[in-house]
Protein backbone atom coordinates (compact mmCIF):
# COMPACT_ATOMS: atom_id res chain seq x y z
CA UNK A 1 0.00 0.00 0.00
CA UNK A 2 1.21 3.49 -0.84
CA UNK A 3 1.18 6.78 1.03
CA UNK A 4 -1.11 7.87 -1.78
CA UNK A 5 -3.81 5.24 -2.32
CA UNK A 6 -4.50 4.39 -5.94
CA UNK A 7 -6.91 6.79 -7.68
CA UNK A 8 -8.87 5.98 -10.82
CA UNK A 9 -10.34 8.68 -13.01
CA UNK A 10 -13.94 8.93 -14.13
CA UNK A 11 -15.33 10.99 -16.98
CA UNK A 12 -15.96 14.07 -14.83
CA UNK A 13 -12.40 14.09 -13.41
CA UNK A 14 -10.47 13.26 -16.61
CA UNK A 15 -9.47 16.85 -17.40
CA UNK A 16 -8.28 17.43 -13.80
CA UNK A 17 -6.04 14.34 -13.83
CA UNK A 18 -4.79 15.02 -17.38
CA UNK A 19 -3.72 18.47 -16.20
CA UNK A 20 -2.03 17.01 -13.09
CA UNK A 21 -0.08 14.59 -15.29
CA UNK A 22 1.22 17.67 -17.16
CA UNK A 23 2.14 19.36 -13.87
CA UNK A 24 -0.79 21.78 -14.00
CA UNK A 25 -3.43 22.50 -11.35
CA UNK A 26 -6.91 22.73 -12.90
CA UNK A 27 -9.64 24.73 -11.14
CA UNK A 28 -12.89 26.26 -12.41
CA UNK A 29 -13.92 29.84 -13.17
CA UNK A 30 -17.45 31.22 -13.01
CA UNK A 31 -19.05 34.10 -14.95
CA UNK A 32 -18.20 36.48 -12.08
CA UNK A 33 -14.52 35.71 -12.62
CA UNK A 34 -14.29 33.85 -9.30
CA UNK A 35 -11.90 30.91 -9.35
CA UNK A 36 -13.49 27.91 -7.63
CA UNK A 37 -12.33 24.48 -6.42
CA UNK A 38 -12.83 21.51 -8.74
CA UNK A 39 -15.78 20.16 -6.77
CA UNK A 40 -17.73 23.48 -6.90
CA UNK A 41 -21.03 23.34 -8.78
CA UNK A 42 -22.14 26.98 -8.47
CA UNK A 43 -20.42 30.35 -8.74
CA UNK A 44 -21.68 31.89 -5.48
CA UNK A 45 -21.16 35.46 -6.74
CA UNK A 46 -23.37 35.05 -9.82
CA UNK A 47 -25.45 31.99 -8.90
CA UNK A 48 -24.44 30.49 -12.21
CA UNK A 49 -23.71 26.80 -12.75
CA UNK A 50 -21.83 27.65 -15.96
CA UNK A 51 -18.22 26.99 -14.89
CA UNK A 52 -15.22 26.67 -17.19
CA UNK A 53 -11.87 25.00 -16.53
CA UNK A 54 -8.92 27.25 -15.72
CA UNK A 55 -5.27 26.43 -14.98
CA UNK A 56 -3.98 28.25 -11.90
CA UNK A 57 -0.51 29.11 -10.65
CA UNK A 58 -0.23 26.46 -7.95
CA UNK A 59 1.07 29.17 -5.58
CA UNK A 60 -0.67 29.75 -2.29
CA UNK A 61 -0.52 30.27 1.45
CA UNK A 62 -1.16 27.97 4.38
CA UNK A 63 -4.48 28.59 6.18
CA UNK A 64 -4.39 25.64 8.61
CA UNK A 65 -2.91 22.19 9.00
CA UNK A 66 -3.13 19.02 11.07
CA UNK A 67 -0.65 16.24 11.76
CA UNK A 68 -2.81 13.14 11.41
CA UNK A 69 -1.73 10.28 13.68
CA UNK A 70 -4.83 8.08 13.61
CA UNK A 71 -5.64 7.02 10.03
CA UNK A 72 -9.25 7.96 9.22
CA UNK A 73 -9.56 5.17 6.64
CA UNK A 74 -7.86 1.80 6.10
CA UNK A 75 -6.54 3.14 2.77
CA UNK A 76 -4.50 5.74 4.67
CA UNK A 77 -3.07 3.34 7.28
CA UNK A 78 0.36 3.33 5.56
CA UNK A 79 0.42 7.11 5.28
CA UNK A 80 0.28 8.14 8.97
CA UNK A 81 1.64 10.35 10.33
CA UNK A 82 0.91 12.80 7.53
CA UNK A 83 -0.07 16.46 7.24
CA UNK A 84 -3.48 17.55 5.89
CA UNK A 85 -3.87 21.24 5.21
CA UNK A 86 -6.16 23.98 3.97
CA UNK A 87 -4.30 26.14 1.47
CA UNK A 88 -5.48 29.38 -0.09
CA UNK A 89 -4.51 29.61 -3.74
CA UNK A 90 -3.24 32.96 -5.03
CA UNK A 91 -6.41 33.03 -7.17
CA UNK A 92 -8.66 32.75 -4.09
CA UNK A 93 -10.04 29.23 -3.64
CA UNK A 94 -9.29 27.11 -0.59
CA UNK A 95 -8.27 23.49 -1.09
CA UNK A 96 -8.05 20.58 1.35
CA UNK A 97 -4.76 18.97 0.43
CA UNK A 98 -1.94 16.73 1.57
CA UNK A 99 1.05 18.84 2.59
CA UNK A 100 4.51 17.31 2.28
CA UNK A 101 6.32 18.96 5.18
CA UNK A 102 9.68 17.75 6.52
CA UNK A 103 9.25 19.84 9.66
CA UNK A 104 5.57 20.10 10.67
CA UNK A 105 6.56 21.84 13.93
CA UNK A 106 7.92 24.73 11.85
CA UNK A 107 4.70 25.38 9.94
CA UNK A 108 2.88 28.69 10.45
CA UNK A 109 -0.38 30.12 9.09
CA UNK A 110 0.36 32.39 6.14
CA UNK A 111 3.44 30.43 5.05
CA UNK A 112 4.03 30.21 1.30
CA UNK A 113 3.19 26.86 -0.30
CA UNK A 114 3.13 25.52 -3.83
CA UNK A 115 1.72 22.58 -5.72
CA UNK A 116 3.75 19.56 -6.69
CA UNK A 117 2.58 16.41 -8.38
CA UNK A 118 2.93 12.84 -7.13
CA UNK A 119 1.83 9.48 -8.48
CA UNK A 120 -0.86 7.54 -6.65
CA UNK A 121 -0.85 3.77 -6.25
CA UNK A 122 2.39 1.83 -6.59
CA UNK A 123 4.99 1.05 -9.25
CA UNK A 124 3.24 -2.25 -9.95
CA UNK A 125 -0.20 -0.67 -10.02
CA UNK A 126 0.06 3.05 -10.85
CA UNK A 127 -2.92 5.39 -10.52
CA UNK A 128 -3.59 8.98 -11.47
CA UNK A 129 -1.10 11.76 -10.71
CA UNK A 130 -2.27 13.88 -7.74
CA UNK A 131 -1.67 17.52 -6.88
CA UNK A 132 -0.27 17.88 -3.35
CA UNK A 133 1.41 20.89 -1.71
CA UNK A 134 4.75 21.66 -0.07
CA UNK A 135 6.22 24.62 1.79
CA UNK A 136 8.27 26.95 -0.45
Amino acid at each position, binding site marked *: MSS*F*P*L*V*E*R*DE*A*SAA*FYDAAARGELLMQRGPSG*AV*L*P*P*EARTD*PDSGSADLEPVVVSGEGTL*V*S*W*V*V*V*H*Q*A*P*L*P*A*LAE*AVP*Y*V*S*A*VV*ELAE*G*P*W*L*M*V*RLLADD*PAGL*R*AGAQVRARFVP*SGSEEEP*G*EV*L*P*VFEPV
Partner: protein
Amino acid sequence: MTGTGLNSAIAGLGLTEMGKVYGRSSTSLAAEAVRLAVADAGLGLGDLDGLLVSAGVKQDVNVNLAAVLGLHDLAVLNQVNAYGATAGVMVAQAAQAIAAGAATTVACVFADTPLKPKQSAGAAWGSGAKRPGAPRNLRGMAGWSVNSGATNPNILYALCARRHMERYGTTSEQLAEIAVAQRAWAVHNPLAQMREPLTVADHQASRWIADPLHLLDCCLVSNGAVAVVVTAADRAASLAQPPVHVWGYGQAHAPRRMHAGSDWGLVTPAGRSGPAAMRMAGIGVDDVDVAELYDCYTYTVLVTLEDYGFCAKGEGGAFVSDGRLAPGGKLACNTGGGQLSSYYMWGFTPLSEAVIQARGDGGVRQAPRNDVVLVSGNGGILEHHSTLVLSPHERGPHERTAA
Protein backbone atom coordinates in the same frame (compact mmCIF):
# COMPACT_ATOMS: atom_id res chain seq x y z
CA MET B 1 -47.58 36.12 27.56
CA THR B 2 -47.52 34.35 30.93
CA GLY B 3 -49.70 31.29 31.06
CA THR B 4 -50.98 31.38 27.50
CA GLY B 5 -51.29 28.13 25.58
CA LEU B 6 -48.86 29.47 22.99
CA ASN B 7 -45.86 28.75 25.20
CA SER B 8 -44.30 25.31 25.40
CA ALA B 9 -42.53 23.31 28.03
CA ILE B 10 -40.63 20.05 28.21
CA ALA B 11 -42.78 17.77 30.35
CA GLY B 12 -41.01 14.44 30.02
CA LEU B 13 -37.49 13.04 29.67
CA GLY B 14 -36.52 9.47 28.84
CA LEU B 15 -33.01 8.05 28.73
CA THR B 16 -32.16 4.44 27.95
CA GLU B 17 -28.97 2.83 29.19
CA MET B 18 -26.11 4.31 27.19
CA GLY B 19 -22.59 3.45 26.08
CA LYS B 20 -21.58 -0.10 25.23
CA VAL B 21 -25.16 -1.31 24.87
CA TYR B 22 -25.08 -4.19 22.41
CA GLY B 23 -27.69 -6.42 20.83
CA ARG B 24 -30.39 -3.79 20.46
CA SER B 25 -31.39 -1.82 17.37
CA SER B 26 -31.61 1.97 17.27
CA THR B 27 -35.36 1.62 16.71
CA SER B 28 -35.77 -0.56 19.80
CA LEU B 29 -33.84 1.96 21.91
CA ALA B 30 -35.79 4.89 20.42
CA ALA B 31 -39.09 3.22 21.28
CA GLU B 32 -37.93 2.64 24.85
CA ALA B 33 -36.83 6.29 25.23
CA VAL B 34 -40.22 7.54 24.02
CA ARG B 35 -42.05 5.21 26.41
CA LEU B 36 -39.84 6.40 29.28
CA ALA B 37 -40.35 10.09 28.41
CA VAL B 38 -44.12 9.71 28.16
CA ALA B 39 -44.27 7.84 31.47
CA ASP B 40 -41.97 10.44 33.07
CA ALA B 41 -44.50 13.13 32.07
CA GLY B 42 -47.34 11.11 33.59
CA LEU B 43 -48.88 10.56 30.16
CA GLY B 44 -49.69 7.54 28.02
CA LEU B 45 -48.48 6.87 24.49
CA GLY B 46 -52.02 7.61 23.25
CA ASP B 47 -51.62 11.21 24.44
CA LEU B 48 -48.96 11.84 21.78
CA ASP B 49 -50.15 13.49 18.58
CA GLY B 50 -46.68 14.39 17.34
CA LEU B 51 -43.42 12.50 16.88
CA LEU B 52 -40.12 13.89 15.60
CA VAL B 53 -37.32 11.40 14.97
CA SER B 54 -33.55 11.96 14.75
CA ALA B 55 -31.03 9.36 13.68
CA GLY B 56 -27.32 9.60 14.48
CA VAL B 57 -24.15 8.19 12.94
CA LYS B 58 -25.90 5.03 11.78
CA GLN B 59 -28.93 6.81 10.31
CA ASP B 60 -31.11 3.78 11.00
CA VAL B 61 -34.16 5.10 12.80
CA ASN B 62 -36.95 6.91 10.97
CA VAL B 63 -40.68 7.68 10.88
CA ASN B 64 -41.49 3.96 10.95
CA LEU B 65 -40.91 4.33 14.68
CA ALA B 66 -44.51 5.59 14.90
CA ALA B 67 -45.89 2.20 13.85
CA VAL B 68 -43.48 0.42 16.20
CA LEU B 69 -44.99 2.46 19.04
CA GLY B 70 -48.54 1.82 17.85
CA LEU B 71 -49.06 5.51 17.08
CA HIS B 72 -51.64 5.31 14.28
CA ASP B 73 -53.22 8.74 14.60
CA LEU B 74 -50.59 11.49 14.62
CA ALA B 75 -50.94 15.11 13.53
CA VAL B 76 -47.17 15.74 13.20
CA LEU B 77 -44.59 13.14 12.14
CA ASN B 78 -41.18 13.84 10.65
CA GLN B 79 -37.54 12.86 10.57
CA VAL B 80 -35.35 15.87 11.28
CA ASN B 81 -31.66 16.20 10.47
CA ALA B 82 -29.40 19.16 10.99
CA TYR B 83 -26.63 16.88 12.33
CA GLY B 84 -25.58 17.89 15.84
CA ALA B 85 -27.95 20.87 15.76
CA THR B 86 -30.98 18.59 15.39
CA ALA B 87 -32.16 18.44 19.02
CA GLY B 88 -32.70 22.19 19.30
CA VAL B 89 -34.34 22.31 15.88
CA MET B 90 -36.73 19.54 16.93
CA VAL B 91 -37.78 21.26 20.17
CA ALA B 92 -38.31 24.48 18.21
CA GLN B 93 -40.43 22.63 15.63
CA ALA B 94 -42.45 20.99 18.39
CA ALA B 95 -42.99 24.38 20.10
CA GLN B 96 -44.04 25.95 16.81
CA ALA B 97 -46.47 23.09 16.05
CA ILE B 98 -48.02 23.53 19.50
CA ALA B 99 -48.21 27.33 19.14
CA ALA B 100 -49.86 26.94 15.73
CA GLY B 101 -52.40 24.46 17.05
CA ALA B 102 -51.10 21.71 14.80
CA ALA B 103 -50.33 19.38 17.72
CA THR B 104 -50.62 19.33 21.50
CA THR B 105 -48.05 16.77 22.66
CA VAL B 106 -44.91 16.05 20.65
CA ALA B 107 -42.21 13.50 21.45
CA CYS B 108 -38.72 14.23 20.09
CA VAL B 109 -36.35 11.26 20.06
CA PHE B 110 -32.74 10.50 19.09
CA ALA B 111 -31.28 7.01 18.85
CA ASP B 112 -28.01 5.59 17.58
CA THR B 113 -26.01 2.35 17.77
CA PRO B 114 -22.65 2.99 16.06
CA LEU B 115 -20.64 0.94 18.56
CA LYS B 116 -20.11 -2.75 17.98
CA PRO B 117 -18.40 -5.21 20.32
CA LYS B 118 -14.58 -5.26 19.93
CA GLN B 119 -14.53 -2.17 17.72
CA SER B 120 -12.86 1.09 18.70
CA ALA B 121 -14.82 4.34 18.79
CA GLY B 122 -12.65 5.64 15.94
CA ALA B 123 -13.47 2.65 13.78
CA ALA B 124 -17.17 3.20 14.41
CA TRP B 125 -16.74 6.56 12.67
CA GLY B 126 -13.91 5.94 10.26
CA SER B 127 -15.15 2.95 8.35
CA GLY B 128 -18.30 4.77 7.39
CA ALA B 129 -21.00 3.25 9.52
CA LYS B 130 -23.41 2.97 6.58
CA ARG B 131 -21.34 0.31 4.83
CA PRO B 132 -18.92 -1.24 7.31
CA GLY B 133 -15.92 -2.89 5.71
CA ALA B 134 -16.64 -1.68 2.19
CA PRO B 135 -13.56 -0.23 0.45
CA ARG B 136 -13.67 3.53 0.05
CA ASN B 137 -14.44 4.79 -3.40
CA LEU B 138 -11.23 6.19 -4.83
CA ARG B 139 -12.66 7.00 -8.24
CA GLY B 140 -12.91 10.49 -9.72
CA MET B 141 -12.44 13.65 -7.69
CA ALA B 142 -13.27 11.67 -4.54
CA GLY B 143 -9.91 9.94 -4.97
CA TRP B 144 -8.08 13.26 -4.69
CA SER B 145 -10.22 14.21 -1.71
CA VAL B 146 -9.42 10.96 0.13
CA ASN B 147 -5.73 11.52 -0.60
CA SER B 148 -5.91 14.94 1.10
CA GLY B 149 -6.26 12.81 4.22
CA ALA B 150 -8.79 15.23 5.73
CA THR B 151 -11.65 12.77 5.64
CA ASN B 152 -13.23 12.65 9.08
CA PRO B 153 -14.53 15.06 11.73
CA ASN B 154 -11.47 14.63 13.99
CA ILE B 155 -9.21 16.04 11.29
CA LEU B 156 -11.60 18.75 10.11
CA TYR B 157 -12.23 20.04 13.64
CA ALA B 158 -8.48 19.92 14.24
CA LEU B 159 -8.03 22.20 11.21
CA CYS B 160 -10.47 24.64 12.84
CA ALA B 161 -8.74 24.45 16.23
CA ARG B 162 -5.33 25.03 14.63
CA ARG B 163 -6.66 28.08 12.82
CA HIS B 164 -7.89 29.53 16.12
CA MET B 165 -4.55 28.75 17.78
CA GLU B 166 -2.61 30.45 15.00
CA ARG B 167 -4.88 33.50 14.96
CA TYR B 168 -5.44 34.04 18.68
CA GLY B 169 -2.71 32.12 20.49
CA THR B 170 -5.10 29.54 21.93
CA THR B 171 -3.21 26.58 23.42
CA SER B 172 -3.75 22.86 23.85
CA GLU B 173 -3.50 23.37 27.63
CA GLN B 174 -6.48 25.73 27.42
CA LEU B 175 -8.47 23.09 25.54
CA ALA B 176 -7.42 20.67 28.29
CA GLU B 177 -9.11 22.92 30.87
CA ILE B 178 -12.44 22.16 29.17
CA ALA B 179 -11.87 18.39 29.23
CA VAL B 180 -10.72 18.49 32.86
CA ALA B 181 -13.69 20.62 34.00
CA GLN B 182 -16.21 18.40 32.27
CA ARG B 183 -14.69 15.25 33.72
CA ALA B 184 -14.94 16.80 37.18
CA TRP B 185 -18.69 17.21 36.58
CA ALA B 186 -18.97 13.67 35.16
CA VAL B 187 -17.55 12.19 38.37
CA HIS B 188 -20.95 12.98 39.92
CA ASN B 189 -23.09 11.78 37.00
CA PRO B 190 -24.20 8.15 37.40
CA LEU B 191 -25.07 8.07 33.67
CA ALA B 192 -21.55 9.09 32.58
CA GLN B 193 -19.31 6.60 30.80
CA MET B 194 -16.07 8.24 32.05
CA ARG B 195 -15.99 9.13 35.74
CA GLU B 196 -12.29 9.00 36.73
CA PRO B 197 -10.96 12.53 37.44
CA LEU B 198 -8.55 14.00 34.88
CA THR B 199 -5.69 16.47 35.02
CA VAL B 200 -4.29 18.78 32.37
CA ALA B 201 -1.21 16.54 32.38
CA ASP B 202 -3.41 13.49 31.63
CA HIS B 203 -4.89 15.37 28.69
CA GLN B 204 -1.48 16.38 27.41
CA ALA B 205 -0.20 12.81 27.71
CA SER B 206 -3.16 11.30 25.85
CA ARG B 207 -2.26 10.19 22.35
CA TRP B 208 -2.53 12.45 19.35
CA ILE B 209 -5.53 11.81 17.14
CA ALA B 210 -4.99 14.74 14.80
CA ASP B 211 -2.48 17.23 16.22
CA PRO B 212 -3.55 19.73 17.70
CA LEU B 213 -6.29 17.43 19.05
CA HIS B 214 -5.43 14.77 21.62
CA LEU B 215 -7.64 11.77 22.35
CA LEU B 216 -9.08 13.64 25.36
CA ASP B 217 -10.19 16.52 23.12
CA CYS B 218 -12.59 14.16 21.35
CA CYS B 219 -16.09 13.01 22.28
CA LEU B 220 -17.11 9.47 23.12
CA VAL B 221 -19.17 7.28 20.84
CA SER B 222 -22.24 5.74 22.48
CA ASN B 223 -25.19 3.49 21.78
CA GLY B 224 -28.49 4.57 23.29
CA ALA B 225 -31.51 6.82 22.94
CA VAL B 226 -32.98 9.95 24.54
CA ALA B 227 -36.47 11.43 24.18
CA VAL B 228 -38.29 14.49 25.46
CA VAL B 229 -42.01 15.30 25.44
CA VAL B 230 -42.99 18.87 24.58
CA THR B 231 -46.45 20.22 25.34
CA ALA B 232 -48.21 23.51 26.06
CA ALA B 233 -46.81 25.24 29.12
CA ASP B 234 -50.16 25.49 30.92
CA ARG B 235 -50.81 21.79 30.34
CA ALA B 236 -47.30 20.86 31.45
CA ALA B 237 -48.00 22.53 34.79
CA SER B 238 -50.60 19.86 35.59
CA LEU B 239 -48.41 16.88 34.66
CA ALA B 240 -46.11 14.69 36.73
CA GLN B 241 -42.84 16.63 36.47
CA PRO B 242 -42.01 20.27 37.08
CA PRO B 243 -42.23 21.89 33.63
CA VAL B 244 -39.07 23.04 31.89
CA HIS B 245 -40.27 26.08 29.98
CA VAL B 246 -39.02 26.90 26.51
CA TRP B 247 -38.26 30.62 26.61
CA GLY B 248 -36.49 30.93 23.31
CA TYR B 249 -34.99 29.12 20.39
CA GLY B 250 -32.80 29.90 17.42
CA GLN B 251 -30.98 28.22 14.58
CA ALA B 252 -28.47 29.31 11.96
CA HIS B 253 -26.59 27.49 9.22
CA ALA B 254 -23.34 28.40 7.50
CA PRO B 255 -22.11 25.64 5.18
CA ARG B 256 -18.41 26.36 4.96
CA ARG B 257 -17.15 28.64 2.24
CA MET B 258 -13.84 27.45 0.83
CA HIS B 259 -12.49 30.77 -0.41
CA ALA B 260 -10.27 33.69 0.57
CA GLY B 261 -11.91 35.69 3.34
CA SER B 262 -13.79 32.72 4.79
CA ASP B 263 -14.05 32.71 8.57
CA TRP B 264 -14.67 28.94 8.70
CA GLY B 265 -13.39 27.50 11.94
CA LEU B 266 -13.02 30.87 13.67
CA VAL B 267 -16.64 32.08 13.70
CA THR B 268 -19.60 29.71 13.77
CA PRO B 269 -23.34 30.16 13.20
CA ALA B 270 -23.68 30.13 17.01
CA GLY B 271 -23.01 33.86 16.61
CA ARG B 272 -26.46 34.25 15.01
CA SER B 273 -28.39 31.40 16.61
CA GLY B 274 -27.47 32.28 20.21
CA PRO B 275 -28.43 35.97 20.13
CA ALA B 276 -31.70 35.10 18.32
CA ALA B 277 -32.69 32.62 21.02
CA MET B 278 -31.67 34.97 23.84
CA ARG B 279 -33.57 37.87 22.23
CA MET B 280 -36.69 35.72 22.00
CA ALA B 281 -36.26 34.74 25.64
CA GLY B 282 -35.73 38.33 26.72
CA ILE B 283 -32.38 37.58 28.34
CA GLY B 284 -28.75 38.41 27.81
CA VAL B 285 -25.72 36.20 28.13
CA ASP B 286 -25.06 37.54 31.65
CA ASP B 287 -28.39 36.02 32.76
CA VAL B 288 -27.30 32.47 31.91
CA ASP B 289 -26.91 30.29 35.01
CA VAL B 290 -26.17 26.97 33.31
CA ALA B 291 -24.69 26.46 29.83
CA GLU B 292 -25.04 23.01 28.27
CA LEU B 293 -22.89 23.38 25.16
CA TYR B 294 -22.46 20.87 22.37
CA ASP B 295 -19.00 19.39 22.76
CA CYS B 296 -18.04 17.04 19.98
CA TYR B 297 -14.56 18.43 20.73
CA THR B 298 -13.17 20.67 23.44
CA TYR B 299 -12.65 23.33 20.80
CA THR B 300 -16.38 23.38 19.97
CA VAL B 301 -17.12 24.54 23.54
CA LEU B 302 -14.48 27.27 23.36
CA VAL B 303 -15.65 28.72 20.05
CA THR B 304 -19.33 28.51 21.06
CA LEU B 305 -18.62 30.47 24.27
CA GLU B 306 -17.05 33.19 22.13
CA ASP B 307 -19.82 33.25 19.56
CA TYR B 308 -22.51 33.41 22.24
CA GLY B 309 -20.76 36.44 23.72
CA PHE B 310 -19.57 34.98 27.03
CA CYS B 311 -16.22 36.52 26.06
CA ALA B 312 -14.76 38.40 23.11
CA LYS B 313 -13.68 36.60 19.95
CA GLY B 314 -10.24 35.15 20.48
CA GLU B 315 -10.44 35.23 24.29
CA GLY B 316 -12.02 31.80 24.74
CA GLY B 317 -8.75 30.25 25.82
CA ALA B 318 -8.30 32.65 28.72
CA PHE B 319 -12.02 32.46 29.54
CA VAL B 320 -12.04 28.68 30.09
CA SER B 321 -8.87 28.73 32.18
CA ASP B 322 -8.54 28.59 35.97
CA GLY B 323 -11.45 26.21 36.38
CA ARG B 324 -14.14 28.66 35.29
CA LEU B 325 -16.28 25.84 33.81
CA ALA B 326 -15.58 23.29 36.56
CA PRO B 327 -17.77 22.55 39.60
CA GLY B 328 -17.53 25.64 41.82
CA GLY B 329 -16.42 27.80 38.89
CA LYS B 330 -18.06 30.99 37.70
CA LEU B 331 -20.04 29.35 34.87
CA ALA B 332 -21.73 25.97 35.35
CA CYS B 333 -21.04 24.40 31.96
CA ASN B 334 -21.67 20.86 30.71
CA THR B 335 -22.64 19.78 34.19
CA GLY B 336 -23.17 16.13 33.28
CA GLY B 337 -19.75 15.78 31.69
CA GLY B 338 -20.99 16.41 28.16
CA GLN B 339 -20.18 14.26 25.18
CA LEU B 340 -16.53 14.27 26.19
CA SER B 341 -17.21 12.34 29.40
CA SER B 342 -20.86 11.27 29.79
CA TYR B 343 -22.59 10.01 26.65
CA TYR B 344 -22.65 10.90 22.95
CA MET B 345 -26.25 11.43 21.93
CA TRP B 346 -25.65 14.40 19.63
CA GLY B 347 -27.70 17.41 20.80
CA PHE B 348 -29.69 15.26 23.19
CA THR B 349 -26.65 15.12 25.50
CA PRO B 350 -26.76 18.85 26.34
CA LEU B 351 -30.58 18.88 26.12
CA SER B 352 -31.05 15.99 28.56
CA GLU B 353 -28.66 17.50 31.10
CA ALA B 354 -30.38 20.87 30.70
CA VAL B 355 -33.73 19.30 31.63
CA ILE B 356 -32.15 17.59 34.64
CA GLN B 357 -30.59 20.88 35.81
CA ALA B 358 -33.72 22.96 35.17
CA ARG B 359 -35.76 20.52 37.25
CA GLY B 360 -33.19 20.69 40.03
CA ASP B 361 -32.56 16.97 39.72
CA GLY B 362 -28.77 17.21 39.40
CA GLY B 363 -28.06 15.84 42.87
CA VAL B 364 -24.44 16.38 43.89
CA ARG B 365 -23.78 18.06 40.53
CA GLN B 366 -26.80 20.43 40.67
CA ALA B 367 -25.72 23.93 39.64
CA PRO B 368 -26.17 26.57 42.37
CA ARG B 369 -28.64 28.52 40.21
CA ASN B 370 -30.82 27.25 37.37
CA ASP B 371 -33.19 30.10 36.48
CA VAL B 372 -31.81 30.31 32.93
CA VAL B 373 -30.37 27.25 31.17
CA LEU B 374 -28.79 27.68 27.74
CA VAL B 375 -28.50 24.68 25.40
CA SER B 376 -26.52 24.54 22.17
CA GLY B 377 -26.39 22.14 19.28
CA ASN B 378 -23.64 22.11 16.67
CA GLY B 379 -23.47 20.12 13.48
CA GLY B 380 -21.38 19.56 10.40
CA ILE B 381 -17.93 21.05 10.85
CA LEU B 382 -19.05 24.11 12.86
CA GLU B 383 -21.65 24.71 10.11
CA HIS B 384 -25.07 24.15 11.74
CA HIS B 385 -26.21 25.56 15.05
CA SER B 386 -29.28 25.56 17.27
CA THR B 387 -29.90 27.21 20.62
CA LEU B 388 -32.55 26.78 23.31
CA VAL B 389 -33.19 28.92 26.37
CA LEU B 390 -34.94 26.87 29.06
CA SER B 391 -36.15 27.72 32.55
CA PRO B 392 -38.05 26.19 35.46
CA HIS B 393 -40.11 29.42 35.46
CA GLU B 394 -42.95 30.40 33.17
CA ARG B 395 -42.04 32.62 30.31
CA GLY B 396 -42.90 36.25 30.85
CA PRO B 397 -41.49 39.21 32.71
CA HIS B 398 -38.81 37.43 34.70
CA GLU B 399 -37.81 38.18 38.19
CA ARG B 400 -34.77 36.31 39.32
CA THR B 401 -35.06 34.30 42.49
CA ALA B 402 -32.73 35.18 45.33
CA ALA B 403 -29.36 33.47 45.21
